[in-house]
C-alpha cells in the first residue's frame, strides 16, 4: 500500500514538472508568492490555462494557494515533510531500478 502511494506521488510529481510553464511557475514561486493573475500576465495563454497549470502543481504538492484579499497567491511548498516524502519516493525509484539490474546479474550463471 505504501509502495503504491509512493508510485502515484512520483507520477504526479514528474508529470507536474514535465511542462516548461509549470517548471517556471515553481521557480518563480520559490522566490516569493505570486498571485494567479500575476503569473498569468507573464505567459501567452489564458488565465484559465494558467489556473489549470497551478492545479496540476497543487495536486503534486509543489505549490499551494493562499487567499489574499480577493486574490489567491501561489507559493511553492518546500515544507519539510512534503519534500522529504517526495525525495524518498524518488530515491525508492532509484532503488527499484538498481534492483532490476541486480536481479539480472544474479540470473546469470556464475563463472
Amino acid at each position, binding site marked *: 500500500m505504501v509502495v503504491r502511494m509512493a508510485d502515484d506521488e512520483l507520477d504526479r510529481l514528474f508529470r507536474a514538472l514535465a511542462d516548461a510553464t509549470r517548471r517556471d511557475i515553481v*521557480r518563480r514561486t520559490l522566490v516569493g508568492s505570486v498571485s494567479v493573475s500575476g503569473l498569468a500576465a507573464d505567459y501567452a495563454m489564458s488565465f484559465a490555462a494558467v489556473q489549470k497549470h497551478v492545479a496540476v502543481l497543487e495536486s503534486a504538492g509543489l505549490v499551494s494557494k493562499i487567499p489574499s484579499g480577493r486574490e489567491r497567491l501561489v507559493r511553492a511548498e518546500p515544507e519539510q515533510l512534503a519534500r522529504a516524502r517526495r*525525495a524518498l519516493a524518488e530515491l525508492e525509484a*532509484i532503488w*527499484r531500478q*538498481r*534492483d532490476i539490474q541486480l*536481479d539480472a*546479474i544474479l540470473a546469470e550463471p556464475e563463472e
Partner: protein
Amino acid sequence: MPITSVIPDAETLTLTVVGDYAVPVERLWAAWTDPRQLERFWGPPTWPATFTAFDLKVGGKAEYHMTGPEGQKSGGYWRFTEVHPGRGFTFVDGFCQPDGTPNDDLPGTIMEMEFESTPGGSRYVAVSRFPSIEAMEQLVAMGMIEGLKAAQAQLDGVLGLEAA
C-alpha cells in the same frame, strides 16, 4: 519483483529496502562486494557507476564515479565503518568534489547492509539514513532516473535555486 518491501520514513529520513532472491546468500554477498558486479547495478543505465577502488574493511574506502549521457562525471565514495564477512557491512556514502576529494560540506548517507539466508534463497536489507532533506534532494538530482531525464534536469535547477 525482487524488492519485497520499501519503507520510507519522512520523519527519521530513512529508507529501508528489502530484496529477496532465489540465490544462495554467498552469491548475493558477492554481487554486493565485487566492484565489477556492483558497478553493473549501483547506477542506472543512463548514469552507470564505475568503481575505481574497493577496500572492504573497517576504515577502508571504495571510490566510484557515475558517468552521464554527455560524459559528465559525478564522484562518490564509501567509507566502511563495519564489516561482518558474509553477513553485512555499514558504510558512509558520500559525495566527492569535481577533483575527486571528499566533499566535506555535504554529509554522507549512512548505509547499513545485512544479508541472510532464507527458505527461498537469500535476502538483503538495506537501510539508508539520510543526514538531511537537502542531501536527499542532491541524491535525487544525481540519481538520473531512467526515462525522466528532462524533468530531472529541471528539478535540479529548481532545487538548486531553492538551496541558494
